[in-house]
């Protein structure tokens, strides 16, 4: 009961001593030189350590060094070429082996599949927020197809679309769509009720509501979906190209790797794999990181 507090006698227990009141003058007690340092510059080492590119670069250097040392001690070019041999093979392939053309061919197919996947995911999620049945449809489709490896569809794709880029694009779209749709949809569901009410308060409805409120509010999830989708697409593409790469005369990176394995040019195989990794690093650390810095980090929704 609340009344209890009022009925408890205030003077129960030993009396507290009577003390004088104390007031501090604001500045009188501390002289200028006594004031402690409020802001100090970081030391050089600390400042350098705070640059993420340097920290990550350091890790890369250490990994390359470990690779080089292991490769040299093993001394078996057929099994495990060293870092320097791989770099030499990479340089040679870029100059003479047409590695850049191969990478470009792969990227072209990749971007096509990725773009179509994003479009399809956008349509599916739009339907999902527009109606209950659309939402059920998306949930059923993602739970059916998200766990299905894209490569498993390749034989079918080959029958339907033949030995061409169409088959590759088809499996890519499959690998991208569900990851992006799933993340975008859960992002939309996670938009706070207050923000939705604010949007409707402005008189926003339908398309305007989606583009001006839902998409920016769900952007962290959408970006996660895009990143996962990109990784899935890249993996699927290389795997699919390993299975069949000869399409319209020029195969992609996967085919480059497969070809060189058959020729026992293992350092070229490593060079191909390294190219896959480098492209992945560039996309992740330049493109996606820049988008993150300009959006969700600036908005304070991710730190």
């Amino acid at each position, binding site marked *: 009961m609340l009344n209890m507090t009022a009925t408890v006698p205030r003077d129960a227990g030993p009396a507290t001593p009577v003390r004088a009141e104390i007031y501090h003058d604001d500045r009188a007690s501390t002289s200028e030189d006594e004031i402690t340092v409020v802001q100090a510059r970081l030391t050089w080492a600390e400042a350098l350590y705070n640059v993420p590119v340097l920290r990550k670069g350091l890790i890369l250097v250490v990994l390359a060094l470990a690779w080089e040392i292991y490769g040299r001690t093993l001394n078996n070019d057929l099994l495990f070429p060293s870092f320097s041999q791989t770099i030499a093979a990479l340089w040679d392939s870029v100059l003479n082996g047409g590695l850049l053309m191969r990478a470009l061919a792969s990227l072209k197919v990749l971007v096509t599949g990725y773009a179509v996947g994003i479009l399809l995911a956008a349509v599916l999620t739009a339907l999902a927020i527009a109606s209950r049945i659309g939402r059920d449809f998306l949930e059923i489709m993602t739970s059916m197809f998200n766990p299905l490896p894209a490569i498993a569809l390749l034989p079918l794709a080959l029958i339907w679309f033949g030995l061409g880029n169409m088959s590759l694009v088809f499996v890519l779209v499959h690998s991208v769509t569900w990851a992006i749709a799933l993340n975008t949809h859960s992002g939309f569901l996670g938009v706070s009720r207050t923000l939705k009410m604010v949007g409707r308060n402005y008189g926003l409805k339908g398309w305007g509501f989606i583009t001006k409120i839902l998409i920016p509010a769900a952007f962290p999830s959408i970006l996660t979906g895009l990143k996962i989708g990109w990784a899935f697409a890249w993996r699927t593409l290389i795997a699919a190209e390993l299975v069949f790469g000869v399409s319209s005369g020029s195969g992609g990176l996967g085919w480059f790797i497969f070809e060189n394995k058959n020729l026992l040019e293992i350092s070229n195989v490593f060079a191909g794999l390294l190219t896959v990794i480098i492209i992945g690093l560039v996309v992740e650390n330049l493109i996606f990181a820049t988008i993150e810095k300009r959006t969700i980090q600036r*908005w*304070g929704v991710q730190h």
Partner: protein
Amino acid sequence: MTHSEPLLSVRGVTIQYKTPQHLITATYRVDFDVHQGDRFILLGPSGCGKSTLQKAVGGYITPCEGEIRLKGQKVKEPGPDRMMVFQEFDQLLPWKTVKQNVAFALQTAKRLSRAEAEERAMHYVCKVGLEKFANSHPHMLSGGMKQRVAIARGMAMEPDILLMDEPFAALDALTRRRMQDELLALWEETRFTVLFVTHSIAEAIKIGNRILLLSPHPGRVKAEINSTTDPIEAARLEKRIHEMLFVNEPEEEEAEHA
């Protein structure tokens, strides 16, 4: 508009909503009128349906009985003529700066040009004393500052009525008192109409000029009384309201203070 015509009229409004198990009556046949320039308070303990009632005025909930009219027009859906200020700090768009948050509302809802919207936004951002933070994103602001931006946004839209749903409830006590004073100062300046929801009797007396007392389960009108600015009268009024709300319902009182 003649003086006797109310700006907002709520007539016999009953609001029900369903939970998976129950049909809950939030308010039962509530009547009240808000006139131009009123600081009208909806006051009551938790569960009296005061927030629900305000959301109905906002157009988010449709009453199952009775009607709500703003300037004679029946309220059907949310709109910028009734700007809401919420309790939650996440009511600002995190991807826009303080100025953009205010200007965006003007651009979308009032169809102002970019330059016009920014100029008016800046005027109201200055009014709430945040000119230094006009280009900051909301996550850099304290809770009180965020609420000030929300108030600036609501006022910049120059709505027929400003709907404030416990806007200071999540603030610390010192900030809350300052925000109350600031809100009153802003009202002195522009004399906007505000419908203010609170569960604090002291806040109701301080902010409001007219107070609607609601009793819980379901929300019904218990009284509609005038507030006062005289401190001695205010203390007396606070006690009277307290007795009216809680005298026969000790458990409600406990829940309220918990």
